[in-house]
């Protein structure tokens, strides 16, 4: 069971109050992109054992989307941050590094 904190209403709730929305920080490739780019955007996802970044929605609460960083192996939630972020905030990355030295996820580490 994940305990997530909604960055908008400050509620710490268990995961049934939220809804998972897939991988975070995807760059959209639409019309005009190459077939390879579009395929990667549509189908290719990270599947890490360890640090992972996801989108979540506080579906039974304020209804807002946000980002969460968590460990897929231990279900530990490192932190959450607003959906308007294009990359994980520096302080969160530092906090993850303290707990999982040498972690890497896509271009972030």
């Amino acid at each position, binding site marked *: 069971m994940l305990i997530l904190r909604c960055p908008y*209403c*400050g509620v710490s709730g268990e995961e049934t*109050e939220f809804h998972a929305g897939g991988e975070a920080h995807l760059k959209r490739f639409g019309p005009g992109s190459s077939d390879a780019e579009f395929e990667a955007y549509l189908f290719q996802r990270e599947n890490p054992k360890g640090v992972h970044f996801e989108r979540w929605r506080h579906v039974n609460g*304020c209804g*807002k989307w946000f980002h969460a960083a968590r460990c897929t192996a231990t279900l530990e939630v490192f932190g959450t941050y607003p959906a308007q972020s294009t990359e994980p905030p520096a302080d969160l990355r530092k906090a993850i590094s303290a707990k999982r030295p040498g972690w890497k996820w896509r271009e972030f580490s």
Partner: protein
Amino acid sequence: MSDPATPLNGAHYAGYVTIAEAAPRGMITLRGDLGDKGFAKVVKAVTGLALPGQREFAAKGDFAVAWMSPDELLVLCTYDRANAVVADLTAQLGDLHSLAVNVSDARALIEITGDDAREVLAKLAPVDLSPGAFGPGQIRRSRLAQVPAAFWMTDTGFQLVCFRSVADYVFEALSTVAQPGSRVGALV
């Protein structure tokens, strides 16, 4: 004007707490930028209540204002005045990017009264309802069994709102966990 048809037709259940549909109440969804000073001023002028902070619930006289999300408030007033209050809000908000809608008939309002009201609600919602964690003046939007709901405390227990379409489900679920003899007694 004909009487409003409430979602539960005044249903009432007496278990080890009492579950009852509340009298018809005016409910208005008000959306806008809660950080805008002009928005706060209009809310104060119309309801007489200051803008509530995060997850706060404030009531005074006929009005109550609840914080629903960073851009949404729930305004409670008397049922008959809801349309007038919407018109008043809309007129006073003017060009400010905002929306006020009368949702009185789209919601069900249910009251849970009794000493063990906290426990009955805690059986259905994944929320810490111990007195130290949740008290009067707060609102919590969460899940009640399988549907979304929002609740706050009154002098005698709780009031909760849910969508009208699931009013019967919520009432039955609450009645089931409030059956006599099902008291747990862990949450005082």
